[in-house]
């Protein structure tokens, strides 16, 4: 069943690509092929392979239970928040929290994860910023 849904999505994506490719503006100078043809070829390959997947599906994989899926979704949300907040609060603070959260969700006790998160953040800061001189996001506190 998973593969049928997957094939269906792939087919829709292929149609979308072909439709969008046909809308690409042509400029007045162009080579014989132009900017539209190759994306259309790709769309066709994508569509045909999706169709095969849809018609001849493999056995469905074992999807995680709803609780686990929620776990992954929350982790993604934390990472997105991390990406957005990184320039605002600075590298060390943001990374400490994100690393602590992931460590906690992977099964460390809450208090320990906070310690691990802070250590991870400081460790990366020390190695990559202080030793290697990589520029990391600077927060209002200067780190």
């Amino acid at each position, binding site marked *: 069943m998973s593969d049928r849904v997957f094939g269906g999505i792939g087919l829709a994506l292929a149609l979308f690509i072909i439709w969008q490719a046909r809308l690409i503006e*042509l400029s007045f100078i162009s080579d014989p092929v132009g900017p539209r043809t190759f994306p259309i070829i790709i769309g066709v390959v994508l569509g045909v*392979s999706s169709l095969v997947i849809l018609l001849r599906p493999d056995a469905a994989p074992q999807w995680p239970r709803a609780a686990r899926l929620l776990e992954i979704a929350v982790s993604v949300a934390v990472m997105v928040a991390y990406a957005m907040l990184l320039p605002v609060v600075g590298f060390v603070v943001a990374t400490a929290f994100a690393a602590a959260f992931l460590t906690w969700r992977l099964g460390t006790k809450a208090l320990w994860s906070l310690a691990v998160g802070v250590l991870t953040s400081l460790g990366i800061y020390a190695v990559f910023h202080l030793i290697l001189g*990589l520029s990391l996001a600077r927060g209002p506190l200067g780190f």
Partner: protein
Amino acid sequence: MDALSSLVDGFAIAVTWQNLFLALIGCFLGTVMGALPGLGPSNGVAILIPLAFSLGLPATPAMILLTSVYFGAMYGGRISSILLNIPGDEPALMTTLDGYPMAQQGRGGEALALSGVASFVGAFLSTWGLVFLAPQLVKLALLFGPAEYFALYALAFATLGGIASKNQAKAAFAAALGLAIAMIGVDGQTGVPRFTFGEVHLYDGIDFLVAIVGLFALSEVFVFLEHGGTGAHEGQAGRARIGRIVPSLSLLRHCTPTMLRASVLGFIAGVLPGAGASLGSFISYSMEKRLVDRKGTFGTGDPRGVAAPEAGNNAAAGGALVPMLALGVPGSGTTAVLLAMLLALNITPGPLLFQKNPDVVWGLIAALFIGNLMLLAMNIPMVGLFVRVLLIPARILMPVVAMVSFVGIYGISGSSFDLLVMIGFGVLGWVLRKLDVPLVPIILGVLLGNATEANLRRAMTISDGDWSALVQSPLSIVLWAIAIVGFVLPIVFGKVLRRRLSLRKDAEGAAVD
């Protein structure tokens, strides 16, 4: 003899304190990453690329660092195979068959040392193969025009799913998806934006480093989250008895013919498109079993069963560099990631690389020799240290991996948008892995998409829009023929080969347990 004098020049480039230090760091990090289940050579190299890039390393040192990581990971994969019966990476799967029984008999240290030597023999011989074969391939590649290059890229895409590919439709889907992602951005030839949907961030296209780190490294973190961080390996490494860590001379002599044969086979498997290191170790093991296993000791802790796959997979790793450097077409996941590094540094591999940047090529090859000596030195006496590394639980390690990925990508562009795209690729990678869609063709599509299209359009411009020009030279006809055979063959034989692979593993796994 040209090759030899170039190699001497290469040593002059490679032997600087900075390069030696980078090689040492790379070998160490690579061995650690290879040893840890879940982090293989391609993830390891993928995480480090953005770092090497944002540190502003020049091309030669950057490549030395990354190839050291690559080879280090090939060495490291065996450690957890032998001690825990869990392959540290995919090519190390066959090493579990005889390595783990040896460890159970208290000969773990011997197995580790022997496999270290076998890895060295494989890697060392295949580096010699690289020295002599790559320049020959370059001569051939100089005959290539745009039509031939287009056919060559098609061949790479068609065969990348591999001979043991499960579902060619999914491999084709992955390649097309990667190519489609490469189309995003301003068209290089006419300057019109494509698939950008008015988003300014997309005008430059999707940075392939962002895609690679997301698909490889971040999706691994999601896999661990899915299983609640239960790394099966936790706390087991301490229990395995290691025993002596220096192999006796008679044992080495006993295994030498095996190592030599396996190296040759592995190298060939590495050079051929679509085979790669996993198949290299599989073929080496099966052939060795057929040739020398008269008493049926393979699978019960025969040292030759450890030496063969390790020599085979390390030789394949060196072999895979041949098409990557000489033609610009990678034959495996990790070499695809290395290709990304070169492209990020504005160096296009292929025949011109040997003419324009001989320092990069030969410096790199010389560094491979040095790196392998370092790895041998590191892996025999210091193997205990790497065993200790296996004790770090995944619940602490994986967040570090995630955070280092973020640091690397943020270091390149300093943009939150790239981080969001990377998270998107991480989720995509996780879903596609669940669905058994291979990720390497996606990477290859993203990497080579623009070059593929450019060669097609160049060929069409030369022929003035006549599509039959694609199949007019004998060379391109041969390439197309190989591409088609390479795509169809797995559909016919893939099932048989895979069944054998899993049967062998099951049967011998059962005998062990």
